[in-house]
């Protein structure tokens, strides 16, 4: 009998608060990016992938919803930081303003991923935000600065770092049960950074 694969998804989102154009309108919160870390265990083997997507100033949030909908897998466990107050609401809000076809396509996938086990690391009182959100540039002002000046690479890198940070924190909470997975994750991160270093080396193709 073959063992069914088990999928964990760590999800991070980035929002910016845009000051109102005039005094009569409240400040608007816009979804500008999402980061994913997907870990799948099949028997004793682990497979990892990490991605982040952003939209530039002036682009519609629904573009990001389409990007995310295509990547959200069927998950057994969703991991995040303040999921009910900071992750899900901007996604639902963006869907409410998206074209109906896109909104429906995205909400089907979001509801599917939330139907399983949801682990909000902020509920564990021993966890501190800095343990999870390892990217210091995810603070609201820095994020708005990066996004507003078009440094989307930095925003994507931070989102990916936050999603991986949440996954590693989740594994550390699991203690010895998560030790093998943490080792496998770190080996994967090392291989990935080596590839990136080679790609960035002078003369690299």
């Amino acid at each position, binding site marked *: 009998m073959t063992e069914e694969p088990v999928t964990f998804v760590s999800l991070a989102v980035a929002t910016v608060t845009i000051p109102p154009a005039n005094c009569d309108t409240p400040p608007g919160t816009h979804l500008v990016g999402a980061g994913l870390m997907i870990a799948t265990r099949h028997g004793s083997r682990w497979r990892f992938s990490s991605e982040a997507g952003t939209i530039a100033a002036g682009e519609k949030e629904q573009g990001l919803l389409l990007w995310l909908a295509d990547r959200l897998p069927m998950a057994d466990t969703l991991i995040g930081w303040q999921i*009910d107050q900071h992750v899900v609401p901007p996604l*639902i809000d963006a*869907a409410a303003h998206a074209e109906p*076809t896109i909104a429906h396509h995205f909400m089907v996938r979001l509801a599917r991923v939330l139907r399983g086990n949801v682990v*909000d690391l902020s509920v564990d*009182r021993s966890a501190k935000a800095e343990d999870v959100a390892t990217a210091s540039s995810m603070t609201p002002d820095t994020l708005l600065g990066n996004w507003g000046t078009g440094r989307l690479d930095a925003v994507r890198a931070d989102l990916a770092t936050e999603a991986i940070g949440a996954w590693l924190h989740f594994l550390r909470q699991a203690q010895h049960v998560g030790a093998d997975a943490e080792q496998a994750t770190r080996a994967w991160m090392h291989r990935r950074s080596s590839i990136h270093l080679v790609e960035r080396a002078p003369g690299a193709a």
Partner: protein
Amino acid sequence: MRQRQHPPLQYPHEYVVTFDLETVVEKEMPDGSFPPWPRHKPVAGTFLTASRSEGRYDFSLDTFICHEGQEAQFLRSADALFPPGSMAVTLNGRGFDTQVLRLQAQRHALYDLRNIARIADAGRYDIAHLDLLDAYGGRGSSLAELCAALSIPVKTSTSGGDVGDLWRRGDVEAIAKYVQEDVLASYLVYLHAIAWRQGDERLIALPLADLAIWLEGEPRLQHLLPFATCGPAQWARSRAPYLRAEAALADAELRLRKEQDEAAFAAR
């Protein structure tokens, strides 16, 4: 007010005020038993207001201390927290807390306190007041027992029997914390009761998740944080995101169907 003979099929949950009084008596009973309720005078009351708007629950927690000579102000403040259309929630309030409020209002000739009148006059199955002892069958179901069974933290700082001593020592802060804990615990019991009554997990998961977030954001309520991280709260916070997404999916389906209908109509 029309007296219902059966529990209502649906309790109002848009505006709920859960409350509890702490009281003292002039003279304790010689045998140590609980003095008859008319002898009790309130010294503190806590009122947790939960109201729903735009899919989220908002909360406020009011605690009033009633010193000698401040009874009228205490009663007026309490009365103002029960607007028509709201539902009061207590544990044993039908036999004690609402009766104490009504008798004290009469004692101080405050006959205009119609909100207290409404909840004190409410029958067992009225929707103006839900007594959790009625919801849980009365005998043997104390707050401590119900909370223990439901993994709700309660009575961590003091106990009801200590209130008289605390009041005489002037330790109103300890009394306030104690009554606040009881009210939060009662509210969590109420959420279990109403969700069960209506067979709808949203009626506990969504308000409890919102309550937990609210408690964590209120520095003055740090002593109540166990209610944000207890077993039921952890379950609610894990479940609420899916329930919100499910509702948003239903909205998206409606919008999609409307768009398709309009496109089909335009193509005719």
